[in-house]
């Protein structure tokens, strides 16, 4: 077969490609149909967010974190910035606000995973999945809108709590949605999980072993599909996560199918968390009194992390005692997972690029910031 070897070909994919989920450029070296090497070219969405944060106070940074970081998980970004600032400044957060934050972050996770499932469905030729997921996503958007006023960007969390209390009747609507959604989840499973085409495109494809996942620092569903039991919500609990009972789904296969199953299971767990929070949530204040909007954070350094839908989102905050941070460094989960992608793709066929790329669920705003 050696005589059949062809010349290597470099295929340029992106930055405009319907399946790159944003403006990612991949330089794929091909030997015939086999992938020899993949080089991601990033920076097409670099918005200089970390620099901009140095010129804005912490409340303004909440709005910036919504937009400039991972835009599919706006509320989790807000939490990431606030967790750092609140830890450093020791801001008290009322109980009720903690539960509200937890509920909203989990709703955000549902919305994010739903969008992922829908677009991954399109990538693999299952258009129905997109339509179904969008249908449920709109219901979550309605829940967001009723409280925060925004669909995508909320600016809802504040230093020491949240902006406003839940509107009347919201908890019942949310509960209703959760029960409805659990049924829908079964429907997705019936549509996709046993589907032979879906399995053929994802099972055994793009394997990342446990050792590789550790070596690359992979996080979130990508790491959990490779058998790493790692979730910030369990290991470094914040807000209400230590008071609710939930499971971390872990699979050991490390392929695209396992990553799909991890996210599907996470959606079920998120719904459980929301339902528990709704039951446990106490009455009372939603915002600590006497926390000014332009809070001066005492000098110091802190590194905190939260679990975004894409993984371990860390914020390293350095303050010199002013109204604005001196330096913010964001450890973006998509960036790390994108690096692991180069290893996952080696040796697969050109048609699997889409399946593997879609399965790691990157958001380019998160990669480039």
């Amino acid at each position: 077969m050696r005589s059949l070897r062809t010349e290597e070909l470099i295929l340029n994919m992106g930055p405009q490609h319907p399946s790159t989920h944003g403006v990612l450029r991949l330089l794929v070296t091909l030997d015939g149909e086999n992938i020899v090497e993949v080089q991601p070219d990033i920076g097409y969405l670099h918005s200089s967010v970390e620099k901009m944060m140095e010129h804005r106070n912490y409340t303004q940074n909440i709005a910036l974190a919504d937009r400039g970081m991972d835009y599919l998980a706006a509320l989790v970004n807000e939490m990431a910035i606030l967790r750092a600032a609140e830890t450093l400044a020791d801001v008290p957060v009322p109980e009720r606000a903690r539960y509200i934050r937890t509920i909203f972050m989990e709703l955000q996770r549902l919305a994010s995973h739903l969008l992922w499932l829908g677009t991954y469905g399109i990538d693999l030729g299952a258009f129905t999945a997109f339509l179904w997921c969008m249908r449920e996503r709109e219901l979550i958007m309605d829940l967001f809108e009723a409280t925060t006023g925004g669909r995508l960007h909320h600016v809802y969390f504040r230093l020491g709590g949240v902006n406003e209390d839940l509107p009347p009747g919201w908890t019942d609507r949310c509960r209703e949605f959760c029960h409805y959604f659990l049924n829908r989840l079964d429907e997705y499973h019936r549509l996709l999980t046993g589907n032979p085409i879906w399995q053929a495109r994802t099972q055994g494809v793009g394997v990342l072993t446990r050792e590789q996942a550790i070596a690359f620092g992979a996080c979130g569903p990508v790491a959990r599909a490779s058998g790493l039991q790692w979730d910030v919500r369990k290991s470094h609990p914040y807000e209400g996560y230590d008071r609710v009972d939930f499971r971390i789904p872990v699979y050991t296969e490390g392929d695209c199918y396992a990553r799909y199953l991890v996210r599907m299971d996470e959606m079920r767990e998120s719904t459980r968390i929301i339902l528990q929070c709704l039951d446990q949530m106490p009455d009372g204040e939603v915002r600590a009194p006497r926390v000014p909007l332009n809070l001066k954070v005492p000098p110091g350094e802190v590194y905190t992390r939260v679990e975004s839908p894409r993984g371990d989102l860390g914020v390293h905050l350095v303050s010199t005692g002013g109204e604005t941070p001196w330096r913010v460094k964001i450890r973006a989960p998509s960036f790390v997972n994108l690096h692991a992608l180069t290893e996952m793709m080696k040796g697969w066929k050109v048609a699997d690029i889409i399946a593997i790329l879609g399965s790691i669920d990157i958001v380019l705003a998160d990669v480039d910031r």
Partner: protein
Amino acid sequence: MVRVPADGSRVAPIEQLVEVLHRLPGGQILVTSIENVLNWARARSIWPLTFGLACCAIEMMQAMGTRFDLDRFGVIPRATPRQADLIIVAGRCTIKMAPVVRRLWEQMPEPKYVISMGSCATCGGPFYYDNYSILKGIDTVIPVDVYVPGCPPRPEALIEGVLKLQEKIQKERRLTRRLQEAAQAGA
């Protein structure tokens, strides 16, 4: 006789027909009617390029999704610029990305339209100040027909933008303008 443009480019058959009609008595009315029909067809089958830059693209997807269903207006996303009439610039465009957007726009066949979705594409939006990497408005790179404000614009706003574009296309007088230019060149 039908004039062939000096640069030797081919004249579309419909334009040849129109030019003949134009010479007949009362032909101007016919030309206007043909133009109206063409515009009607164009306005009701705007095919955009599937092209998302940032957060606004998510709202664009929602607009094409189940609840808002842009397909109702004949908006069917195409994956290649060569099949597209419209490019919806959804999101912030970096200086690194700007040449790519320009290239995509150049690859689209005439007549082509541009919707600038969101404040970032319109003017730089929330990334206007203290920022070294974002383009201050996509209209510095490609000509924009309709601006949709918002951060992000709601799907309804995007639909309104598409409807405004349809109005604009309906009012266009491409054939008439072309005939006038030809007459002037001939005179």
